[in-house]
């Protein structure tokens, strides 16, 4: 990896484990109940989910963390340009496991997060399962929109080249 973690920092790894699955792993220097809180209390969640480098602040966050309960998060610089993301919790095991749907689209993943405590540290594993390979690709941008723009650019360059000749 090109971006090496600093010595004190635990590395974040991302692995594509199948055609429609991604796994993110990270260890935190604290017990599972604390890490779990940070994922399930809106006032805490809002403090880390949208780091400054993401460029877009979180406007609001509602979470009803129980099986069948919903969540709704809005991002944006103001209410007029806000984007909302929402879904519901499929499984909630305090300090151990969270599963939620992402319902703002049909091809979004189901996300499972597990918290495993060992010696006061917590290994967090986030797993995303997409409904299909196509859904994954649509989301990952691997087959995404830019090629079309390049096609157009190619055409433009050809036209300009022809005119110049």
């Amino acid at each position, binding site marked *: 990896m090109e971006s090496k973690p600093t010595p004190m920092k635990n590395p974040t790894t*991302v692995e594509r484990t199948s055609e429609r699955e991604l796994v993110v792993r990270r260890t935190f220097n604290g017990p599972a109940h604390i*890490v779990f809180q940070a994922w399930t209390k809106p006032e805490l969640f809002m403090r880390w*989910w949208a780091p400054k480098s993401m460029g877009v602040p979180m406007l609001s966050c509602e979470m009803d963390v129980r099986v069948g309960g919903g969540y709704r998060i809005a991002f944006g610089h103001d209410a007029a340009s806000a984007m909302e993301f929402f879904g519901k919790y499929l499984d909630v095991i305090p300090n151990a496991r969270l599963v939620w749907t992402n319902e703002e*689209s049909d091809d979004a993943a189901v*996300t499972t997060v597990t918290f495993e405590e060992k010696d006061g540290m917590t290994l967090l594993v986030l797993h995303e399962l997409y409904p299909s390979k196509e859904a994954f690709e649509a989301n990952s941008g691997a087959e995404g929109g830019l090629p079309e723009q390049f096609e157009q650019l190619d055409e433009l360059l050809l036209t300009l080249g022809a005119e110049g000749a």
Partner: protein
Amino acid sequence: MRHLLLHRQRCRTGEAVRPGLAPPTCGEGLGRGFRRHPAPRLARRRSIGYILNHMVQYSQTRLDTSFAALSDATRRGILEQLGRADASITDLAETFRMTLTGMKKHVGVLERAGLVITQKVGRVRTCKLGVRRLEEEAAWLESYRQLWDARFDALDKLVEELKQKEKDDGE
């Protein structure tokens, strides 16, 4: 479809965002600061060294098929050859002194790994390097990892704070 539309919405800053509770999996949505644009077409043809470099940089499981494809000296040779010029299966078979069937198998392995793309025109199947998809995916995975890393750095700080608070409350 609403999903895609959402993804293409831009905020007023001009940033594309995908910041929902859904992990930020949309390339579109990672924000310009995160997304690396795929190489333009002209840059598609890259050397084998470039490909290998990418593989070292991005060790993802998805790349296993690519590594497997590259584990064979003949297949590495084919990629080097295609890095210089596109070639037909027949050309490649001659260059590597192999049967057509044998060469088709090698090209098939490279094709499945996304390293080579082939196109049949008339009776001739032309092969060329197909690294673009691989580059895009590797770049996307890395930008995705960086976003999580930034989030988790912020979460580290919060965990420290909560730990301290718990300790203080306990005393």
